[in-house]
């Protein structure tokens, strides 16, 4: 890691500690849920980042299919991987929150169900990507699925919402349904998760670039070896 990456890691650590302070000590307990509400700052923040990550995947998939520059494909896959991690975190924190509030680990709430379907869609995206040969074909095929999956998300959400809903509305058409200190903490947590997302995106894209470069060097080396072998066979004959 370079100097800038280390700076990023230290900034995330400091912001992370501040976020813990705001979420666990500074913000007030909720009227009915009490201290259990504190998990919301991590749950909602990570859910928003997960949706953002999948949007970035679809956006860079479109840009890749137009420009055909593999850098955009690397950004798309890095964002999808981070999105899957944040979605997993959302599902786990959601389940932990649901147990004491709804008295169940899992319920068929639209947002919960949509999030789990989203998780499966992008796990499928990563599996599809990981099992296709050829850099460009892989980028093209996974890019198309990234777009299809993202276009399907609103349809999935509305279908599941019409099916059933019991989720608390943190934000509705009247705005945020919570006091100012809680809104500040929630937005601060979101900002911290966003910085973590950006840092991971840069590091993962850089790693993917190095991986592709290594692959191309190895391929070039194999071609050189094959050529050297051909030359030696020709020389002998």
């Amino acid at each position, binding site marked *: 890691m370079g100097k800038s990456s280390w700076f990023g890691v230290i900034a995330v650590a400091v912001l992370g500690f501040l976020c813990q302070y705001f979420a666990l000590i500074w913000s007030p307990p909720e009227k009915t849920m009490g201290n259990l509400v504190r998990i919301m700052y991590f749950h909602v923040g990570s859910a928003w980042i997960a949706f953002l990550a999948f949007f970035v995947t679809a956006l860079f998939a479109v840009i890749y299919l137009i420009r055909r520059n593999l850098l955009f494909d690397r950004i798309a896959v890095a964002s999808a991987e981070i999105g899957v991690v944040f979605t997993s975190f959302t599902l786990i924190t959601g389940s932990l929150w649901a147990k004491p509030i709804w008295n169940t680990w899992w319920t068929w709430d639209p947002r919960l169900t949509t999030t789990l379907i989203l998780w*499966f869609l992008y796990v499928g995206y990563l599996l599809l990507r990981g099992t296709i040969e050829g850099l460009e074909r892989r980028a093209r095929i996974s890019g198309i699925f990234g777009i299809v999956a993202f276009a399907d998300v609103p349809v999935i959400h509305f279908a599941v919402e019409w*099916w059933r809903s019991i989720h608390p509305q943190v934000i509705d058409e009247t705005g945020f349904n919570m006091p100012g200190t809680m809104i500040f903490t929630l937005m601060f947590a979101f900002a911290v998760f966003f910085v973590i997302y950006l840092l991971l995106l840069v590091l993962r894209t850089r790693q993917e670039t190095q991986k592709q470069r290594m692959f191309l060097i190895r391929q070039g080396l194999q071609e050189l070896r094959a050529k050297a072998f051909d030359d030696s066979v020709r020389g002998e004959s």
Partner: protein
Amino acid sequence: MAWSMFWTLVWKELRTELRGGRLVASTLALGVLLFLVVGIALNGASNLTADWSAGLFWMVVFFATSIGMTRADVKEQELGGSLGSLLAPIDRSLIFYAKWFSTFIIVLVSEVGMLIAFLVILNAPVPQNPLHFALVVMGGTLGLTGIGSFLAQLAGSSSLRDILVPLLLFPTTIPLFIALIRLTVISMVPTVSGAHIWVEVLVGYLVLFAVMPFLLYETMMEV
């Protein structure tokens, strides 16, 4: 020109199926077997509610079709027919729509068999509104085969193709799945309301997956 090419491609797919009957036979056999297994798992399943019956019917249809479609074009791949289609001087999305339509016909045939097994083995309630039920089955099959054909082509070059097609298909088709179950329940018990919402979901889904391949299929089939 485009229409005649479309029908030529559809006829080519149907003839290939008529010669071997791979998709009909595999989908139908798997579907009937699944009804049998579900019946045993539910201890004879003699008294299922409309909700349960509709859910089980579509679960079996989705599962059997997705497994069948993963290998639907093996013969074509072996004999180089797919490459020949790609060389035709037509918009490539036309190849997709022909494949979609032919798969729709083939799956519909196997669904007739599955429906009989569903009514007999699971002792399911006969739909009180058969015309409504027939339209739901046709709409559902159209949606399922559309996205299924697209994803089967998409995952065609993957080494995990057999497992990936159902894995990609199920999460993608959840809205369709929910809409079909609700509409099937309504066709079985006409007193249940709310059909218009699910018809909107079904039509919206069909439109989405009819337009998207038109935009993306050409890119997908680049050699």
